[in-house]
């Protein structure tokens, strides 16, 4: 029997460029999640913050920053940094405290005010930092890696730039239905094709923006949920946080080279695939059980890669799945019904939590115009720098 925790509440601060402190967004999301759970902040036994490293200084220890802003009340506190996987790993830390019996009810918060333009490493000469090295020696921004993956798909599978654009068309249509999304207008393939090339073959509208935003969830033990009268809450059944296996043979951010497979035969699956497999195994479900998926569409082409890594289709069949309408609202397995990062942009520590907020709304069947009919099982998937990856499976 899989151990589960309840999602009692979900809250978000709308994404955008608001120019305020990350603490403000996090507190707004936290208050919304608490209200949604029907709880007060002093009821919370532990708070876990997903850290922001704005400016590169790893001192925005967010658990305590949010706890102080909400009013010190003596809760246990933790802070988690795992780049884009920070939010999911914060959820995992909160879940672990509940399953270990250290806390009955936990608040998990992530928020950021992202700088404009390319993400970049902190200042100073730091030649022992692979993220600093790839910028200093190569000038290889995140979109450069997205461009490499996109071009590789074109060579391997015959994907076209128009296929990539269709991901944006789909996600923007769903984001237009989401009041928390930053971009709420539908985008056409012609508009994608007319936008500037950033990293060949990807254009501006193929790549997600940077944004401000916040998201929070209230998690509890199943027993605590029952005591609150919530007999059938949305439950988290798995959080995968596996690392890659040596040799990691797909060039990943921020690395300049892959591991060599000269001495050790690589495992039969890529890192991204292993993240999904770990989540499926822990939850005791498979891709055929999914009602929806929220995946990191840092670029349009990357979303197609996730289709294959999650096992929604066979390798190289991502475009066919998209073109068949399977991943659109009303399709067999809708992907990024929230609008995805295409509609939200990146607020790094918040976005993996925002994915779980979307699953929660969908599984409660309160997602309004973007509701996936009869949603029962959902997965999120993301990948952070430095070998961090995460996937969350929630059920109703």
């Amino acid at each position, binding site marked *: 029997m899989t151990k589960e925790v309840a999602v009692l509440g979900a809250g978000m601060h709308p994404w955008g460029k608001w120019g305020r402190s990350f603490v403000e967004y996090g507190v707004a999301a936290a208050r919304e999640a608490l209200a949604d759970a029907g709880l007060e902040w002093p009821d919370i036994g532990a708070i876990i913050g997903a850290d922001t490293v704005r400016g590169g200084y790893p001192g925005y220890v967010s658990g305590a920053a949010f706890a102080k802003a909400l009013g010190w009340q003596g809760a246990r506190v933790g802070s988690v940094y795992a780049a884009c996987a920070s939010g999911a790993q914060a959820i995992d830390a909160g879940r672990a405290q509940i399953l270990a019996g250290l806390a009955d009810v936990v608040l998990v918060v992530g928020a950021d005010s992202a700088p404009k333009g390319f993400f970049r490493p902190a200042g100073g000469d730091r030649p022992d930092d692979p993220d600093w090295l790839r910028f200093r020696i190569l000038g290889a921004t995140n979109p450069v890696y997205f461009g490499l993956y996109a071009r590789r798909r074109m060579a391997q599978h015959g994907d076209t730039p128009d296929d990539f654009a269709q991901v944006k068309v789909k996600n923007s249509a769903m984001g237009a239905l989401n009041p928390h999304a930053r971009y709420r207008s539908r985008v056409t393939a012609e508009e994608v094709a007319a936008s500037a090339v950033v990293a060949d073959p990807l254009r501006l509208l193929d790549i997600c923006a940077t944004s401000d935003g916040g998201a929070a969830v209230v998690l509890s033990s199943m027993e605590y949920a029952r005591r609150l009268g919530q007999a059938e809450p949305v439950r988290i059944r798995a959080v995968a946080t596996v690392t890659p296996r*040596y*040799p990691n043979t797909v060039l990943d951010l921020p690395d300049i080279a892959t591991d060599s497979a000269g001495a050790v035969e690589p495992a039969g699956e890529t890192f991204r695939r292993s993240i999904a497999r770990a989540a499926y195994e822990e939850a005791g479900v498979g891709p055929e059980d999914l009602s929806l998926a929220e995946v990191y569409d840092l670029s349009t082409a990357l979303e197609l890669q996730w289709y294959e890594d999650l096992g929604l289709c066979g390798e190289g069949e991502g475009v066919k799945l998209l073109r068949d309408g399977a991943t659109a609202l009303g399709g067999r397995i809708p992907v990024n019904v929230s609008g995805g990062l295409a509609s939200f942009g990146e607020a790094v520590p918040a976005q993996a939590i925002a994915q779980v907020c979307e699953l929660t709304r969908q599984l409660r069947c309160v997602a309004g115009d973007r509701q996936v009919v009869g949603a029962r099982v959902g997965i999120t998937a993301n990948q952070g720098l430095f070998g961090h990856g995460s996937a969350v499976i929630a059920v109703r």
Partner: protein
Amino acid sequence: MVTGWFAGEGDDFRLLGTRCSACASVFFPREDHHCRNPACLGGELVEIPLSRRGRVWSFTDSRYPPPSPYVTDPELPWEPCAFIAVELEAERMVVLGQAAPGITVADLAVGLEVEVVPGVLHEDAETTWTTWHWRPTGVTGVTGVTGVTA
């Protein structure tokens, strides 16, 4: 800046990695402290030159100037820089690098053979920072200075 990542001049220019004397794993950028093969108890890490030629795994470019710490001259208009990820057959690994000056994405294709050549990353009045570039084989053109790393 990246001491010991490459050496040599002209046709002798090579990327340098290290190889574990116990399990033969190869590392680039060089690993000088511990073998990263989880099944290896660890051996001496010995410097080795990497293959000079490989095949394009993928490629792209940067149409906007990268942010610092990449060094760009704000006085000059940005010239898109191409990148090539190269599969080295002997080492069974992929190594990313900038394409040689003048090479654009129009000159590239997945599977094309390329070779490593010396190049200039950046120079100011006192210092020239050298680097490696990938260039399709059979193409000759501008090559940078070699040797010293700063």
